[in-house]
């Protein structure tokens, strides 16, 4: 029994891409929320080290700026730190008052670090009491699709987070992959042929731009 308890309290590793997102129920600035409340929407779950800190404040303003665009992509946003809900409320009110930016997404008050530990957001080498700058992109079926980690010192790139969601949704909708530095409207990668016959057909397909049998691109309809 004690072993089971110890196992439950031990920080678990990072969830893996392609695995179900760990369940949570947490107190937030928008009431008690569960992971399953977001089912059917994509979700960006991100952590920040602490409220009322400068880099985190710039990040919250950045997340607030991309939130309308994310919502158009059927994507919700939820923040997290090891702070109380009262601290979160005071901070988001301060950001609105001092910076003129309204924070409209919920923020988890993870004082017992349950969610942070379930998602591997505490990196002991940096801090045992603060969450690192983690970003989990969770799809509408609640599967982890991408993970980004930044250290405490460095603010995240909101444009990349937006680009990542657009890329993942494009991949799902079209059965393709996206090349380095892909942007919506750019050509996409056709997955490599799986047989010799498919490779031969691939090189003769005039709808594709093939440099070689394994390296074919195409323009998506409407792009």
């Amino acid at each position, binding site marked *: 029994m004690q072993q089971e308890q110890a196992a439950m309290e031990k920080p678990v590793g990072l969830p893996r891409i392609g695995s179900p997102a760990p369940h949570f129920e947490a107190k937030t600035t*928008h*009431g*008690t*929320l*569960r992971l*399953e*409340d*977001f089912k*059917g*929407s994509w979700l960006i779950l991100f952590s920040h080290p602490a409220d009322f800190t400068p880099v985190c404040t710039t990040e919250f303003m950045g997340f607030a700026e991309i939130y309308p665009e994310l919502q158009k992509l059927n994507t*919700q946003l939820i923040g997290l730190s090891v702070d109380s809900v009262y601290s979160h409320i005071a901070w988001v009110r301060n950001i609105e008052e001092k910076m003129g930016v309204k924070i409209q997404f919920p923020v988890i008050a993870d004082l017992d670090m349950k969610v942070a530990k379930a998602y591997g957001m505490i990196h002991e080498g940096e801090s045992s009491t603060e969450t690192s700058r983690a970003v989990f992109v969770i799809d509408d079926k609640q599967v982890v699709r991408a993970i980004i980690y930044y250290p405490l010192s460095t603010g995240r790139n909101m444009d990349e987070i937006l680009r990542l969601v657009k890329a993942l949704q494009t991949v799902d909708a079209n059965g393709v992959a996206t090349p380095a530095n892909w942007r919506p409207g750019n050509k996409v990668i056709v997955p490599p042929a799986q047989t010799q016959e498919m490779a031969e057909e691939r090189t003769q397909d005039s709808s594709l731009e093939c440099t070689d049998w394994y390296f074919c691109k195409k323009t998506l309809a409407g792009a």
Partner: protein
Amino acid sequence: MGCVNSDGSITNSARLMLSLLSTPMTAEEAAAQSGQPLFKVRSSLREMVETGLVELEGEHYRTSALGKARAEA
């Protein structure tokens, strides 16, 4: 969302939801009609079911007698 204030009164958003649920509907329909994000509506409905303000039948939510009385108070 939070449906009950510390003094026991219900919040404005809960009052709105109780009014909406005089006609039974799903969480998705309530979100569409209220203009609130679905995650907020699901959370709010769960809380209102727990406090007895709303009843759940299958996938449809409707205002309970208690909810109606509290909304009109």
